[in-house]
Structure formats: structure tokens, C-alpha cells
């Protein structure tokens, strides 16, 4: 389980990643085009300006002193143009890069919101966080620095090469050969250094894992006076990483001296050969002098390319991870049945026109004309105006009976032969059948891992079932628009997560447009009002980093208030009161009862005392319901429940 950040230095699918990155850069097309033009102007201005030494010198040598002011003025003009375009392109680039990065971050976050929970189960928060920090940053930096530099270096390289070929093509062949050697060396070295970096990465992963485990258990370390032993062990791992890192870095750092050396050798050979050619009168001395100056310049962009290349590869590896995450399959949401509010406390499922609900909640096409105008779902027939839901039974195209129009939401939930596993091939629930009639309270009891939470997670489609179907008021939940399905279900989760904001904001998370009165009423219902009012600023008290300033019990009360303000037709309480002491639990029981009143409720309870007045209690073991019935029935059975109730067995 050791946490491993498999940060690969090289992207695997370069072309694809590049294409996607380019597509994003397309969002700032015009700016980038402007940058490209300005960079080119700036690069050419630089080349021309450097070249101007030659005409000046020539003019002076030929005694045309009167040309000096004009030539200098021209040089100054070219340089001024260069500076202005540099100013222009750097400013434009910053804005373009930020636009692109903003869009990437926005789309990434947006996409992550749509990923199924199974993704978050298998991915550590830190890994997702590093998309936003490390990976986006490398991409941003690459955009900021590399785009312009790449164009500039290319122009410089091509320009220099052209000049070299014009000045002396024979010598240039030598230069080209040396450049080829450099390129080959870089390629070879790059592939070899991968091995070293993999080793470093492993050592880093091992250390990360150790640090994470020990730092989270730091309090236990203290209680057992285990600090010294930990330091010793840390030292070992730290040293391993140091050694692996040193060899990797040392190897990577040889790249620059190696290319520099080849560059010098090139220079030396060109100098000697050029001198021989000059002595034999095949080139003139002046040309050779300027040639060697340009040879040195030719080596510069190659080094720059190497650095840029590494930089870009790094960025592309980051981009690949980002785009990889953005290409993950989002939650399936193909449901077309939607939820409509039809009254103060009544809702209805709206079946799309031309469709009807058949056996097992299937959505079947019906002969459109079969359904009367009154139940059609068009905007012109508001449900509220018609007073109630109009449901009609019609014969479908296949001859079976279908329900169409608006089906009142009653809270009837049924599992038909449901199979489910978190990982393929390993079923957690098998052939599960259960039903909850409208308004019933259904409780799940069983040890950890028996599948209690899993069942509730399937009702709201946190996970997709592998077999069978789950129907909600006769409709297969897969046919219900996911957002509407979840809106109809109020869930109090095992761990309450609070958000930065005030207490009121956190309760309002259940209903974003709730008024202050509604928030207060919900808090009262959840017995949270009294403790909230005792907080320094009452409902306006800021909640900091996931509610660190509130006790677990207080957070659970807030979660209950949150569901109370949402006022959903069906409730799911996943150990909603596990962290509340029995005395407080007793106090909020009334509030809970009020919230549960008239609603179908699924509850998972830690303490059996809280489930005894449920309409049905399901005892789960290894994904199967082994006992079901009311409290009295189950006790009379003298089975598993009885044992649990007597404290003969562990619940956890």
C-alpha cells in the first residue's frame, strides 16, 4: 500500500498529449500568434543587430566614415524594434499562458467533479491535489518560458545555419556532423538516465510512504517514546534516497559538459581546417573570423534546445497526467426521468414524452398518441397548475402496460437480484433482494464490511450495480437523471465534512437558497441550535479546516441539520449518530423522528438501540441478508441479531 507517486519523467503518448495541449493553446490563438510574430521580429532584430558590426567595420575599413552615424542609427532602430517586440511578446505571453492554464484548471476541476466515487476510492487525495499543484504548474511554466524560447531558438538556429552555409559550406559540414553527434549523445544519455531516475523515484516513494504513515501516527510515536527509533529508521531511508538521487543527478548533469566539450572540439577542428584552407587561399581570413564567431553561436541554441527539451518533456509528462485524468470515464448519467416539485411537500417523477415505465422499471418507448394531452410533460402544462400528478397507464409499442406522464414520488425502493462488487470479479453483494415501502424505516445492521454502507451507496448510484435492478417508485434508478435522484435522497454520511465558511453556510449546503429562518429551524430540528448559539459568533462562526474547531458530535449535528434543511423525500442515515453520546442522542431522537416522519428512511446504526423501532431490520453478513424482521421478531428468532443485541458479538 506504500504510497508511490509514479511521476514518470517522460510522457508515454507524446503525440496525443501534444495535440491536446495545442488544442488548449488554441484558446489563446490570437495572442499566441501575436507572440510568435513578435518573437520572430525580436529574434531577427537580434541577429541583424549582431550582424551590423560587419557593415560598420567594412565601412570604416573602406574609409567611408560618413556612413557611421547612419549605420549606428539603423542599428539603434533595429534594436529598439527588438526591445519593443520583446516587451510586447513577454506581456502577451504571460496573459495567454494564464488564460490557457485557467482553462485547463477549470476543465480539470469540472471533470473531476463528474468522476465516479470509485475513482476517489482508489486514488489518494494527494495525488489528485498534485494535478492542480505540480502538474498544472509545470505546464504553466513551460508555456510561460518555452513557447517563446522555442521559436526564438529555432529562428536563431536556422538563421545561424543559413549564415554558416553561406559563409563556408565545407566547414559547415563539420559543424553539422558535430551537431549530429551532440543530438545522438543527448538521445542516448536521456534513455540511460531514465534508469537512474526510476531508482530515485522508488526511493522517494518509499520515503514518502514512510513519512506519511509516521507523521499521521505521530501522537502514538510520542506516547511510546519512539522518537529516536524513528529518526534512525528515517535516516536509513533518507540516505538511500540521497544516494539514489546523487547518482541520478550526477548522471543527468553530465549532459551539459559533454555537449560543451563536443562544441569545443568542433570549434578546434573548424579552426585548424579553416586555417589550412585559408593558407591554401580557399577562404579569406575575414570570412574565417566571422565564421568561427557564428560557429560558437550555433552551439548555443543546441544547448538551449536540450534544456528546453527536458523542460518540455517534463511539462508534457505533467500534461499527460492532467489529460489522462480529464479523459477518465465520468459517472454514467443517462437517466431521462426528472424530478418535479408538485406541492409543498410532494414531488413527482416526470417520464419523458413518448416513453413509459414498464416492468422492472425499464424505460420503454410508447406510441406517443396513446398518452393523453393532459399528462404530457410539456412546459405548457405545469404540474403545479394541474393540481396533482397525472399518471396514465398506456399500452406500449411492445404491448406491455406502461406508466407515463408524472409518477408521484412516494419513496418506494426495491432491490431485485442485485449483484455488486467494488472491484470486478469480487462481489460484495450477491443476489440481494429487499424492499422499502413508502414511509417505512429500514435499518441495516451487521459488522464492518458486511455491505451496509454499500447498499445505501447503490440507491443514490454512487456506484453502478453489476446485475439486477434497483427501482425507485417503480422506475429503474438508472433511468432517473442522477442529479434528480440524489436530490430526492437526503444522506447523512458517516464522516461529516464541513466546508470553509460560516456555520449557516454549512447548513445551507443542503439547500443553497435556504433563508435564515429555514437554517435556524433545521438546526433546531437537529438539536444543533443550542450549541451553535453558544459559539462565539453563533451562526456566523467560521468553520476552519474541515471543522477542526468542532467536536465530532457537533459536526454530526450539523450534518443532520443539513439534511433537515434540504427536506428530501427519502432519507439515508449512515451511522448518523455514532459519534454522539447516548445522552445527546436521546435529546436529538425527537428531532430525528420529526425529520424521518412520513419519509422512507434507510438507516445504518452503530448502536442497536437506535434501530429498534424500525419497520424492518436487515442483518447483513458477507453481503447477504441473513435475517430480516422487526426488532421483536428478530429477538424471538434467537439468531445473529439476538447475539449482537446481547453483546455476544462484535458489531464493528
Amino acid at each position, binding site marked *: 500500500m506504500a504510497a508511490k507517486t509514479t511521476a514518470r519523467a517522460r510522457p508515454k503518448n507524446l503525440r496525443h498529449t501534444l495535440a491536446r495541449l495545442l488544442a488548449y493553446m488554441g484558446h489563446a490563438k490570437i495572442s499566441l500568434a501575436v507572440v510568435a510574430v513578435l518573437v520572430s521580429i525580436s529574434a531577427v532584430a537580434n541577429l541583424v543587430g549582431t550582424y551590423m558590426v560587419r557593415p560598420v567595420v567594412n565601412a570604416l575599413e573602406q574609409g567611408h566614415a560618413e556612413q557611421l552615424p547612419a549605420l549606428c542609427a539603423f542599428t539603434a532602430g533595429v534594436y529598439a524594434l527588438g526591445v519593443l517586440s520583446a*516587451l510586447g511578446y513577454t506581456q502577451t505571453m504571460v496573459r495567454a499562458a494564464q488564460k490557457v492554464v485557467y482553462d485547463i484548471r477549470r476543465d480539470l476541476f469540472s471533470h473531476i467533479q463528474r468522476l465516479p466515487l470509485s475513482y476517489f476510492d482508489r486514488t489518494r487525495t494527494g495525488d489528485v491535489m498534485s494535478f492542480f499543484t505540480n502538474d498544472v504548474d509545470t505546464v504553466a511554466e513551460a508555456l510561460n518560458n518555452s513557447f517563446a524560447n522555442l521559436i526564438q531558438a529555432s529562428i536563431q538556429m536556422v538563421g545561424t545555419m543559413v549564415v554558416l552555409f553561406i559563409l563556408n559550406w565545407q566547414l559547415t559540414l563539420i559543424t553539422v556532423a558535430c551537431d549530429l553527434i551532440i543530438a545522438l549523445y543527448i538521445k542516448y544519455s536521456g534513455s540511460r538516465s531514465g534508469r537512474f531516475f526510476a531508482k530515485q523515484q522508488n526511493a522517494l516513494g518509499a520515503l514518502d510512504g514512510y513519512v506519511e504513515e509516521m507523521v499521521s501516527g505521530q501522537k502514538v510515536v510520542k506516547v511510546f*517514546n519512539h522518537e529516536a527509533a524513528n529518526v534512525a529508521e528515517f535516516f536509513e531511508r533518507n540516505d538511500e534516497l540521497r544516494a539514489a538521487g546523487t547518482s541520478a543527478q550526477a548522471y543527468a548533469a553530465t549532459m551539459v559538459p559533454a555537449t560543451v566539450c563536443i562544441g569545443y572540439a568542433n*570549434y*578546434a577542428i573548424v579552426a585548424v581546417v579553416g586555417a589550412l584552407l585559408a593558407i591554401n587561399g580557399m577562404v579569406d581570413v575575414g570570412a574565417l*573570423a566571422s565564421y568561427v564567431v557564428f560557429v560558437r553561436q550555433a552551439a548555443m541554441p543546441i544547448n538551449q534546445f536540450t534544456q528546453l527539451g527536458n523542460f518540455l518533456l517534463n511539462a508534457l509528462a505533467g500534461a499527460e497526467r492532467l489529460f489522462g485524468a480529464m479523459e477518465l470515464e465520468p459517472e454514467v448519467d443517462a437517466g431521462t426521468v426528472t424530478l418535479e416539485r408538485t406541492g409543498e411537500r410532494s414531488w413527482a417523477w416526470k417520464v419523458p414524452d413518448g416513453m413509459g415505465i414498464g416492468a422492472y422499471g425499464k424505460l420503454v418507448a410508447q406510441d406517443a398518441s396513446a398518452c393523453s394531452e393532459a399528462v404530457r410533460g410539456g412546459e405548457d402544462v405545469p404540474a403545479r397548475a394541474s393540481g396533482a400528478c397525472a399518471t396514465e397507464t398506456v399500452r406500449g409499442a411492445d404491448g406491455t402496460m406502461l406508466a407515463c406522464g408524472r409518477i408521484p414520488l412516494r419513496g418506494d425502493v426495491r432491490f431485485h437480484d442485485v449483484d455488486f462488487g467494488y472491484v470486478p470479479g469480487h462481489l460484495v453483494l450477491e443476489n440481494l433482494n429487499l424492499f422499502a415501502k413508502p414511509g417505512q424505516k429500514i435499518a441495516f445492521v451487521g459488522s464492518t464490511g458486511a455491505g451496509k454502507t454499500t447498499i445505501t451507496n447503490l440507491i443514490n448510484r454512487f456506484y453502478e450495480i453489476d446485475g439486477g435492478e434497483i427501482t425507485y417508485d417503480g422506475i429503474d434508478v438508472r433511468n432517473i437523471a442522477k442529479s434528480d435522484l440524489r436530490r430526492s435522497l437526503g444522506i447523512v454520511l458517516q464522516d461529516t465534512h464541513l466546508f470553509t465558511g460560516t456555520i449557516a453556510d454549512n447548513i445551507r449546503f443542503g439547500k443553497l437558497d435556504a433563508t435564515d429562518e429555514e437554517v435556524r429551524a433545521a438546526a433546531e430540528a437537529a438539536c444543533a441550535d443550542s450549541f451553535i448559539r453558544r459559539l462565539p459568533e453563533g451562526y456566523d462562526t467560521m468553520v476552519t479546516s474541515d471543522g477542526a474547531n468542532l467536536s465530532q458530535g457537533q459536526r454530526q449535528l450539523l450534518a443532520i441539520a443539513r439534511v433537515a434543511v434540504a427536506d428530501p423525500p427519502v432519507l439515508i442515515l449512515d451511522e448518523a449518530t455514532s459519534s454522539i453520546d*447516548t445522552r445527546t442522542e436521546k435529546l436529538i431522537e425527537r428531532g430525528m423522528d420529526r425529520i424521518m416522519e412520513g419519509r422512507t428512511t434507510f438507516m445504518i446504526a452503530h448502536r442497536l438501540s437506535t434501530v429498534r423501532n424500525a419497520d424492518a431490520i436487515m442483518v447483513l453478513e458477507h453481503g447477504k441478508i441473513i435475517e430480516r424482521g422487526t426488532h421483536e421478531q428478530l429477538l424471538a428468532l434467537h439468531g445473529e441479531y439476538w447475539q449482537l443485541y446481547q453483546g455476544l458479538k462484535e458489531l464493528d
Partner: protein
Amino acid sequence: MSDLKRLLSYLGSYRRDAVLGAIAVALETSIELIIPLLMARIIDEGIVQRDFRIIFSQGALMLVCALASLGLGLAYARFAARVAMGLGANLRQAEYEKIQTFAFGNIDRYQTSSLVTRLTTDITVIQNAISSGFRPMVRGPVILLMGLFYACSMNMELAGVFFVVLPALGIALGLITWRVLPLYRTLQESMDDLNGAVQEDLTAMRAVKAYVREDHERNVFARVNGALAGRSTRTFSTAVLNLPVHQLSMYTTATLVLWIGGNMIIAGRLTVGELTSFMSYVLQIMNSLMMISNVFLLLTRALTSVRRVGEVLDEEPELALPAPEEALREVPDGSIEFRQVDFKYRADAAANVLEGVDLFIPAGSTVGILGGTGSGKSSLVQLICRLYDPSAGSVLVGGADVRSYDVAALRDAVGIVLQNNVLFSGTIRENLKWGNPDATDEELLAACKLACADEFLDRIGGLDGELGQGGAGVSGGQKQRLCIARTLLKHPRIMIFDDSTSAVDMATDAKIRANLTTLVDVTCLIIAQRITSVMDADLIVVLDDGRIHALGTHDELLAGDSIYQEIYASQMERAQEATAAGGALGAPAGKGGERDGR
């Protein structure tokens, strides 16, 4: 600057490598500056005088220079890698050692993830800055100085241009840096906001999905994302000004040199060759300045990480330790006394968590602690082993103030089973040995038996069974029992159970408590939710809102304390049935040994 200085102080034994690496780079850079001189000899003497000897000897010298620079480069590569990685390792080690000295209060202030980042990512950022900044950091100044020297020695008059342009450039760069630095700081804040928003969203993903709040979260994110993009634009658009400013000064210098030099040639005070060479120095000097300013940018970016690491290193451990020679090393007995204890977790917190607690617990007694959520139960017991210090009043163990003990000795004598306890990856044996590194297998098994952990030990692979990260692989109840065994192995004088059997079934819970009574001379403090867990205690403390509401035995409290009665009532039906069940179970619990013997 002080951050940089502190960074260098962690070089330790790698200071030598740093110096050698710097020398290697400086020499390599000098060679780079020598090569054009060799070239000049080939052209001026070799070709002009048709002297093949000079051509070949200078060519050979150039090759030698190339090889020398390769050798120096390779040496530098090794030194620089050693420096970067060594410094990183030293920093990490110092940081980790510092964290080990943290008191609970210090740990509370940082989030686990934040500490982990400071130990890993931040160090990596620093290492990368060093390994990529090392060469230009030395090269830049060397080229600058040598270039200026050559330029001055060649023609003082022309070199005068530098002394006009360079100060102007310096001022301009200074202004940019002065404006950018505070911007970087606010940029970091925006970044933290964004990270905070993402983290919050990720940890609360289930709630977000359950309440269909994806759009709401998108809006929240859009806000921080926009703020970050805006701040980044402001910061970077100022920072990138240094490129045009550089170019402006470089081009100004070049044009001026061309103009002045040209006029000097006309006046016959300068040769054409000198002007061309001088121009090449202009390029070199200006490029070196660019290099230096890039290094600065690189370091600035790493500075945030240096600061974050520095924060950890600067953190003062909250517990003031007694002078080692005066510290008591022996806890004489297991008596505990609270004298007018007030406690709050942070000095600036509005309300006390504990207030005016007076309590005496004689050695060897068993005490139950009851109270609602947030009544201060855990806080109370954590003061005993000095996980925190009281804000007022004092806590005495064995008749002496806990602050006068050597902390290790105190914590060895006071065993606490924490509420949120963890096991670590490794075998069961390794985990248990945290309690006593010298324990034999027999002792380990005996402790397991007392904690009723022997019942499932075989099923998880015995003492050699492997646990995953954070003790993955055992159920909650099993984990709690292993944690109890681990604490028992310390043979403490005081044992504290902070709701540490909540996931254990009642029969086993009763059995563990029965086993504990066999320990002689050990004071037991039991925090529990279930009244059955504490009803047999010699003394029961009822806490309410940080104050002691009532003290007494089960019968006394049942007769006279309202809160106890309420708790009892809320559990009554269960309690009665459980008592009945407990009666039925009395036999196996009492004859634990026999049952374990099977």
C-alpha cells in the same frame, strides 16, 4: 537573504563539495574565455605567418581545453549532485528530527498532509533549484568579472560605457524585484486558497455528490481559479519586464560601443580587430547578467519552499522540559492529582476546555470517566502523561508535578491507549514491540492474552502477521485490542483507556476489564461511553462542559447525580439486558484462562 544563509548552514559535510564544485565551474568558465584567445592566435599568427606549427599547436591546445572542460564538467556534475542531494537529505533529516520533538500542541497546528509536503515536495523543489542553479550561479559572476577585466584592460575608454549602463540596469532590476517580491507572496496565498478549495472538495466528495452540489463547487473553484490567474498575471507581467530591460541595456551598450568605437577608429585610436573583440565581450557580459538574474528568479521560486521548511525548523516545542540533571527519572507510584486545573488547547482560544478541575486518584485504583461529547474527558487524561500542559493549576503523578519528570520516564510510566489509535505497517511483533523493544515472544503473547487479542491472532498470521499502512488488515475491534496489548507491554504504573474498546463487543470488553484487575499496583483510568464499562470502578468521574459534575461510585451517582441518571436512563434498557447477558457470560469471562488455554 537570511533564508539563503540558513539554507547554506545545512550544507554540513557537503560544504567541501560545494567549494570544489564551484572551483570546477569557475575553471571551466575560464577555459571558455581562453578559447577565443587561442583562436585569435591561429588567425593572427598562424594564417598570416603561414605557420602550420602554431595552427596545429593551438588546435591541439583547443582540444586539450575541450577535454579539460569535459573533465571539470564531469567533476562539477558529481559535486553539484552531491551538494544538492546532500543538502536536501540534511534538511529533511533536521526537519524530521524536529517533528519528533513536537508536542501534541505543535502537531495539532500543522495538518498531517502539510507536514508531509514540507518533508517531501518542498525539499525536492529546493534540491532542484540548487542542482539547476549551481552552474549559472558561479558562471555568471565569473564571466561578468573576467569579461569586465578583459574589456577594461583592452580599452578603458570604451569600457566606460559599462559603468554607465550597468548601474542603470542594476537600479531597474532592483525596482522590478522590489515590486515583484510582495506580489509573489500574495500569489502564494492565492495558490493556497486554490489548493484549499480542491482539498476541501476532494475530502468531501461524497457530500458534494450526495447533495448534487457539483455546480456549487465549480463556482467556488471558478472564484479561486480566477483570483489565482489574475494574481499570476499581475506577478508575472511585472517579473518578465526584466527581459526587455536587459535587452534594452545590452542593445544600448552595443550601439554605444559601436558609435564610440567607430569614432575612435576614425580618429585612429582603435583598431578594427579590437572593436570586434570588444563587441564579443559586450555580449558575454550582458549574457552573464541575464544568467545571474535567472538564477535569482529560480531561487525566488524555491524560497517559498525554504520558508515552509523553515517554519517547521523554527517551531518551538510546546513542552518546556526540565533541566536534564534535575529531572525526575522514576515515578514512585501511580497516584494522580489534579489541582485547580484549567486547560485550553490554544492560548488564544476563547473558552477553557477544562475548568477548575480538582481530583485525587489513589495509586492502584480503577477510575471511570463519563461525560458527553466535548465534555473534556480526553483532554483530562492527556494532561497526565503531559501530552499537553495545563493552562493553569498543576497535575501531579506519584506526588510530583508532571513537569518535573523526564518526559520519557513519565510516558514510560503512564500508558495511554489513544482514542484514534494507529498501528503501523510491519508485523504484529514489530508493532507490539513499540511497547517494549526487548519483550520476548512469551511476553508479547501474554500481553495479547490480557488484551484478548490472542483470540484472533492465529487468524491474522500470529506474531508474524503483516499489517498494511496504518494497520490495515485488522478490524476496528481487533486493532483496539492490539493497541491495548502494545500499551500493556510497557508495564506502566498508570494505564489510561481513552474510549479504547468502543469497537470491541461487550463480552470481550468485560473480559478485558476483568483481566486488567489482575494487574497489581496499576492505576486504571477508563473513559467510556457505555455505563457498563465503568460501573464497577472504584470511582466514577462525571464530566460536564469541562467541569467535574459529580464524583462517586455507581450506586452513589445513580442515587444522586442528574447527568449520571440521564446517561443511565438512555442506556438503561440496554444496560439491564446487558447485565443479564453479562451474568450469563460471567463464567467465560471469569475463567478467561481456561478458555484461552484451549
